[in-house]
């Protein structure tokens, strides 16, 4: 964990004793270097990282399900579980975007970064690990998303114990606790005053009409044989004041992290993440999971001779097959492009969209496009060998975080980064194309290259317009 985070989470005996002495209801503990407003920003950053990390781990687990080794009825189960977990991952994306909206409202910097593995803090539910879905890994997800009341039940005991074992003996921390803390903090009018809420940020927040693309429950995705009625709502909530922040935090908690047992019962179509994971866990086989043979924590880093040997969940699986490695790098570039474009969109004002091409409209479309690209490249990676020289183990998406996701100060420079990312991607595409690949993959690369070429034209147009604007300013 980064020291910049850990020192705010370390025990602070002096302040604890002061708080103990104070009269009145218990307040969240305030780290001594921070103001309440600053602390709210800090907790929202933690929430962003947690949502981001959960999303990535759930995606990885979902990607692992299925494959040629799974047959018969198991295949239908694997497909079903995969879609349920992907749906949850998509909802975590919605949570992540909503948390950015709250950061916008209180004037905090947006935060889409996350630490590479391993990391841990008092709010992170479990050690970050990209691993195929197993009964053990599912216990961690169940407990992390569990309501507090359920954790005290008899039913919970063996699952909590198994989850802890799966996380190297550490107790899993339910995500609901973090949202509980945020709700307490935002409810406290003495801690966060009206002055902490900006009233002019709505045009710089994500909204449902644009990011939900206006679809209602179950209308996006849900391609299987199932009824769309059973698909939960994607939360992309714009915030304008304390009340709307609390509404957003309660909604996130209810949908995913479920702070109490009293959730979802009145509306069986709107099941919490906890309920959905528990259902999968109960049906999931103890042995021979319907998963692909993909590694834990794949990385594009190459092994060094002097590298200390790591074990268990902290170990990384080096992708050494040259072809797979290039695809993995391409995945990382597109992952970075997804996050950067998402962040970039938050910096373009929503308006009447009279400019053409519209910067905001294109950035939103590209963000969705990158989600599709991640799906496509991950789908290819899990069919390619992990190591040079073959073997049964397959590669997998590494989800490695870029050195920075910070946006440059000048608007024109933001478009330059977009151009950089397209160019980096183009180099990799050319390299992959040059080493001889299967025809279906070549067709995808051609389509991606041509899509990027069209996108680059738009980037150049917007960049030129921005440069002219800055020169005349």
């Amino acid at each position: 964990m980064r020291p910049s985070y850990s020192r705010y989470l370390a025990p602070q005996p002096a302040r604890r004793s002061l708080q103990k002495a104070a009269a009145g209801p218990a307040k969240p503990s305030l780290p001594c270097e921070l103001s309440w407003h600053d602390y709210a920003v800090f907790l929202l950053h933690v929430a962003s990282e947690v949502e981001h990390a959960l999303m990535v781990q759930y995606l990885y687990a979902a990607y692992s399900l299925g494959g040629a080794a799974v047959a018969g009825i198991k295949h239908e189960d694997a497909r079903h579980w995969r879609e349920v977990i992907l749906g949850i991952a998509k909802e975590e994306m919605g949570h992540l975007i909503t948390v950015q909206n709250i950061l916008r409202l209180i004037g905090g910097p947006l935060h889409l970064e996350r630490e590479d593995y391993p990391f841990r803090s008092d709010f992170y539910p479990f050690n970050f690990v990209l691993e195929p879905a197993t009964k053990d890994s599912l216990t961690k997800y169940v407990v992390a998303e569990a309501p507090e009341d359920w954790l005290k039940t008899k039913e919970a005991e063996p699952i909590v114990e198994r989850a802890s074992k799966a996380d190297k003996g550490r107790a899993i921390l339910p995500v609901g606790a973090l949202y509980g803390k945020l709700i307490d903090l935002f409810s406290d009018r003495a801690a966060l005053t009206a002055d902490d809420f900006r009233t002019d940020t709505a045009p710089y927040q994500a909204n449902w009409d644009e990011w939900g693309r206006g679809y209602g429950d179950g209308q996006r995705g849900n391609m299987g044989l199932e009824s769309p009625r059973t698909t939960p709502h994607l939360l992309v909530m714009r915030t304008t004041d304390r009340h709307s922040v609390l509404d957003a935090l309660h909604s996130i908690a209810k949908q995913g992290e479920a702070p109490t047992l009293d959730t979802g019962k009145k509306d069986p179509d709107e099941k919490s993440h906890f309920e959905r994971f528990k259902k999968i866990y109960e049906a999931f086989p103890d042995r021979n999971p319907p998963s692909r043979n993909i590694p834990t924590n794949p990385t594009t880093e190459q092994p060094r001779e002097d590298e200390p040997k790591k074990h268990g969940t902290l170990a990384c699986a080096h992708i050494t097959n040259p072809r797979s490695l290039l695809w993995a790098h391409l995945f990382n570039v597109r992952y970075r492009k997804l996050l950067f474009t998402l962040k970039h969109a938050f910096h373009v004002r929503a308006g009447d969209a009279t400019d053409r091409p519209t910067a905001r409209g294109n950035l939103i479309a590209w963000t969705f496009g990158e989600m599709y690209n991640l799906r496509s490249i991950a789908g290819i990676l899990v069919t390619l060998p992990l190591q040079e020289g073959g073997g049964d183990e397959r590669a997998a998406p590494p989800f490695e975080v870029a050195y920075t996701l910070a946006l440059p100060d000048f608007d024109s420079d933001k478009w330059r980064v977009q151009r950089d990312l397209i160019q980096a991607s183009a180099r990799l595409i050319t390299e992959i194309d040059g080493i001889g690949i299967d025809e279906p993959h070549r067709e995808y690369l051609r389509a991606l290259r041509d899509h990027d070429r069209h996108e680059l034209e738009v980037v150049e147009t917007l960049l030129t317009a921005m440069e002219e604007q800055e020169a005349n300013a």
Partner: protein
Amino acid sequence: MTIRGLRILPPLAIARLGSSPEPLENYDVRVAENDPPGFRKIHGAETLVVDRHSGTIRRSYTPKSIRFKDRQGRVRPVAPFLEVWADVDGALVPLTAALLAKNKLTIDDVEWRAQVGNHKAFRRTGKAPDRIDADTGWFRGHRPHPLAGQCENFLDGKSIPFGDVQFIRPSRRFPEIRLRFTPPKGLIYGAVARHRKADVADIVYDSSRGTWSGYSDDDAVPPLIVTNPSSIYANTGDDRTTSRGYLDDECDGIVEVRIVTSRKKPLQAFARIGAGPPDFAPDSFPVRTIADDLEQALLGPDPKDDEVSSAWTEEIIRRAFETVRLQNTAALNGNPLEGGVANSMASQDAGLGRAEEPIMAPAIVDSLALQALHQSVFAALRSGSAPWFGQVLRQYDDVGDLTDRGRRRMPAMMRGSDGLHLALTRRQRNAVLGSGNQQATSEDARAVTFTAPTTPPGKETE
């Protein structure tokens, strides 16, 4: 080798108007291998050159490139051939002079007839004298037979040329029995009194006899919605949308062939022909075409498992972004633009009592952004991903759903022939859904989709 019956193929041929005397050459449209989401490529195909005077085919060749206009800038018409095929002992074979001879028949035994009409004015006024019809009567021989559109309410001696048909003289090299329909030029004809001279090629309609000039949809008796949207005819721009009495030379009808034999009944067949406007975007296809509807009528709404394929879904997505490429999507969405809000589904929905507002969030409908999004979907399909967007496609019975949710389904911002929001055919939609299910359950399924959670039937019952 007994001829049991005749067929004309294709059974439906659509000509395209053009004022050039040189018909357009034949071509194929193919997806560009090195630019999959780019424009389709137009490739010349075998073209027959007809001597109009003698009716013979002088030669055939394959053009290296296709020019849609002649050197004078006139649009080259698409003039289709209709070929006669014979049912010989259960097999369809081209009818030729040799086959006729084997059946003790000659070319001179072959008779043709073409009947076409333009009923646009008649459909609105409801008065039979406003029908414009042309009939060649049965004919033999190989000279062109003009299709002169006659109408009771025309000025004496006036008609609208609807092109002509010509029985192509078979030769040793081109022995097949075929007819060519050469469509009219694509001209506008006017009525006495209301026309603007610059608009019309000729004055044909007698306003003292008929009511087409001065007609308004408001006058329909009984009051009917004649078309939806209404008033889609050239009008003076007043509140009543008063018709200028204009007519065009588009037409459609039937071509028949018959051979009188010693049998009781002659051998005969028919096909449909029509003449529509030129294709101004020949390298792009609409997301739903007449061919899709005919296919559904012929084969039903549910494709068989072995008919469903990722290529079919890919073609639908390709046509979607080709359609977007041709549209001003910001205007079609009802975004406020310079000069106000365009006539679009957003404004037409208001005519049905709905509040007038953009269909999608205004910022996300930029044509380039939508093209990029569709191309991303296209690229993802090329990677082998199962399509995940089937539920977003509008169902055929939801075309009148004017809620935000209903209007935002795909295809969006486009009007169907019933005036409501466009839907794919059920067969097209089922092909996408079927392809998704097929890929998602296949052993080699890609693991990855960004789909929402789903529940197989019966799995989620509490």
